[in-house]
C-alpha cells in the first residue's frame, strides 16, 4: 500500500508543473499582425466577426470573476474591452498596468440609454461604487472583442 501512495505522490509531482499559472490565457495569440484599437473603434463594421489581435496596456480587469479586461487604445482616452466566457479564461487583477497581446472576435452592440444605464450600474456594483444614471445622456455603440486568448508577460 505504501508503494502505491509513493507512486501517487510521484505522479502528482510530475503533474505539478501544469499547475503553475501560465502567462498564456485561453488559446493564446496566433494572429501575426496587430490591428490598432483606434482603427477598430473608427470602423468597427469592417471588422465585426473577424478575429484580430490588439496590443496595449491593461487598464482594468473584472474584479469579481476576471471575465473581462480593458486595453488602452493608441489614442488618448480610448480603450477596448476584451470579454471572455466566465471560467474559461480568468484574468488576474494583478494584470492591471501590464502590457499584453489579445486575440478575439470583434463584436458591436447598439445599446439604448436604458441598456447603457443597466451596464454601467452593473460595473459600478462590481466595484462597489456609486453610479448616477443622470450621467448617461443617450445610447451608445459598444465595440469589444470576444476574447479567445491572450499573452500577458509577468503575471
Amino acid at each position, binding site marked *: 500500500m505504501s508503494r502505491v501512495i509513493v507512486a501517487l505522490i510521484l505522479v502528482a509531482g510530475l*503533474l505539478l508543473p*501544469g499547475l503553475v499559472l501560465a502567462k498564456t490565457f485561453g488559446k493564446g495569440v496566433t494572429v501575426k499582425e496587430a490591428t490598432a484599437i483606434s482603427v477598430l473603434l473608427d470602423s468597427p463594421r469592417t471588422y465585426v466577426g473577424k478575429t484580430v489581435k490588439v496590443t496595449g496596456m491593461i487598464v482594468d480587469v473584472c474584479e*469579481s470573476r*476576471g471575465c473581462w479586461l480593458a486595453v*488602452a487604445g493608441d489614442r*488618448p482616452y480610448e*480603450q477596448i474591452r476584451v470579454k471572455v466566457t466566465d*471560467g474559461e479564461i480568468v484574468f488576474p487583477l*494583478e494584470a492591471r*498596468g501590464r502590457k499584453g497581446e489579445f486575440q478575439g472576435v470583434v463584436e458591436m452592440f447598439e445599446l439604448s440609454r436604458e441598456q447603457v444605464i443597466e451596464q454601467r450600474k452593473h460595473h459600478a456594483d462590481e466595484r462597489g461604487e456609486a453610479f448616477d444614471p443622470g450621467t448617461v445622456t443617450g445610447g451608445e455603440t459598444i465595440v469589444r472583442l470576444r476574447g479567445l486568448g491572450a499573452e500577458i508577460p509577468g503575471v
Partner: protein
Amino acid sequence: MAWRKWNYILHRDVGFACIGLTLLYAISGVAVNHRHDWNPNYRIEKTAAQVAPLASGQVDAAVVKTILYQLGENRVEESFFQPDPENLWIFVDGRVVRVHLATGTVQYERVARRTFWYPLNALHLNQPQGSWTWIADLYAVALAFVAISGLLMLRRKTLRRGLLLTGLGVVVPLVFILFFLQ
C-alpha cells in the same frame, strides 16, 4: 457474493481518495457561490488621499511622477492611463491610484490575493487547465463511481430509505431545471 465485497472495497478506497478534492470543491464552492457578497479571490483595500489639484486634460510622465511623489511613492517606472480628461489612473506594482485631476482627490486601491481562497478557487474553476483538467476529470469519474457503487450497496434493510434519499437528491436539481431555468 464476490462482487459485493469488491464493490465495498472499491467504494471505500475510491471514497478515501476523493476526500481531499471533495473538501476542496465543497469549501471553494461556497466561496464562489457568494461572490456577490464578497470577493473570494482578492482582498481589495480602497483608501482616500489628496494631492494638489491639477488642470484637466492630457497629462505626461512628469505630472504622474509629481503625483506619486506627493503620495510618498518613489517609483521610477510606472504606467498610467486616462479614461477621460478628468481622471488619471496610475498603476504601481499592481496597485491602482485613481486621481480626479480637478479636485486632486485620490482613491488608492491595493489588491492582495487571498492566500487560502485564491488557490482553492483557481483549482475549482480549472484556472490552471492543462494537467489539472485530467485530475478534475479523473475526480469526476471517481465521484460518479462512488455514487453508483453506493447505490449497489443498498440492501433490503436500507432499500426504502436509500431510494428515498437518492430520489430526493435527483428531484431537487430537476425542480430547479424545470421551474427556474426555463
